[in-house]
């Protein structure tokens, strides 16, 4: 009986244009990878969402590793963006599973956090994978170190030969 009620309310909402039915998502992302420019990393996910029932102006929330961020919308079109930063630490390579929730999903997520329920029980509207390659400052060994190692090796070989000659 309760299930029937929920299904009827949901279908009413989808029909009235509040819920997004079968969203198709086109996404792109950016992550900071150049450590020489600074330790602060920026992560930006941009997406275009098209709903089968043509719902515009979705109110979305993104969940990244248990932290929720409101998703911004551009004034024209169905373009959305969520961004976050990691400051003062070198961000290691990671695969972020960014889950997107609508208003009802977000409220369910907050309720689950309040009653100490597992957040994975709340199903997201859709999710986007963000692959962060890690921050690096070029090759892991600097060219100066290689030059120093080569010079030291030549010096060692020459010294050995010299001591062999002298003795």
């Amino acid at each position, binding site marked *: 009986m309760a299930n029937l009620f929920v299904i009827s309310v949901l279908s009413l909402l989808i029909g009235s244009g509040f819920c997004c039915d079968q969203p198709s998502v086109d996404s*792109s*992302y*950016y992550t*900071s990878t*150049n450590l*020489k*420019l*600074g*330790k*602060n*990393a*920026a*992560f*930006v996910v*941009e997406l275009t969402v098209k709903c089968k029932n043509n719902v515009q102006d979705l*109110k979305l929330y993104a969940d990244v590793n248990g932290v929720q*961020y*409101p998703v*911004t*919308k*551009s*004034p024209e079109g169905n*373009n959305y*963006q969520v*961004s*976050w*930063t990691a*400051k003062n630490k070198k961000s290691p390579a990671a695969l972020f599973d960014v889950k997107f929730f609508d208003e009802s999903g977000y409220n369910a997520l907050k309720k689950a956090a309040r009653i100490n329920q597992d957040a994975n029980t709340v199903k997201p509207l859709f999710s986007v994978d963000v692959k962060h390659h890690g921050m690096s400052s*070029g*090759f892991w060994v*600097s*060219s*100066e170190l*290689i*030059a120093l190692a*080569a010079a030291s090796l*030549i010096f060692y070989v020459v010294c050995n*030969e010299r001591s062999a*000659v002298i003795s």
Partner: protein
Amino acid sequence: MKYCVLVLFLSCFCVVASEESSAKLILTKNILNSIITQGNDLAIEYNMYNIGDGVATDVELADSTLHDTDFELISGKMSVKWDRIQPGTNVTHVVVVRPLKSGAQNFTSAVVQYVASEDSEPKFGFSSEIGEVEILSLKEYNRLYAPHVVEWGMFGIWTIPSLLLPYMLYYNSKTKYTVKSKKN
């Protein structure tokens, strides 16, 4: 009777006064990079804090100070909107651009427009200014931070004659000496 009416009127006034809550947004704009160079990514972060006691609705952030002639947009949108920002919370927005020119660049404020309380006119606010920042040219950046592999390679090649020549002399004399000792 008159006293009751007066008390009733004052209590209504108090109730009305306490229900007026208004949002106040503070916008800060700062650069995430430690080094800003021409041809390399520059991440700019916008932080919006609602220090008022009401919900800010129809919040629109627009930054028109990063012109197409000076900056290439890599990721993020310059103009975005949030539906609501709860009191005592903050939101973040990041834009990644690539400077096309080197030299001194003045980073000025972004603008935010929001509705502070129900049925009120939209308010405007300006972000903090970053001010004048020196953008390193690509040549200068490479001089300081590039791996210089080619330069080290050339150096290695130029030291070969000064190393090889004495070594050849030594090797020749060594082989002659070794041949002599075998004879002995």
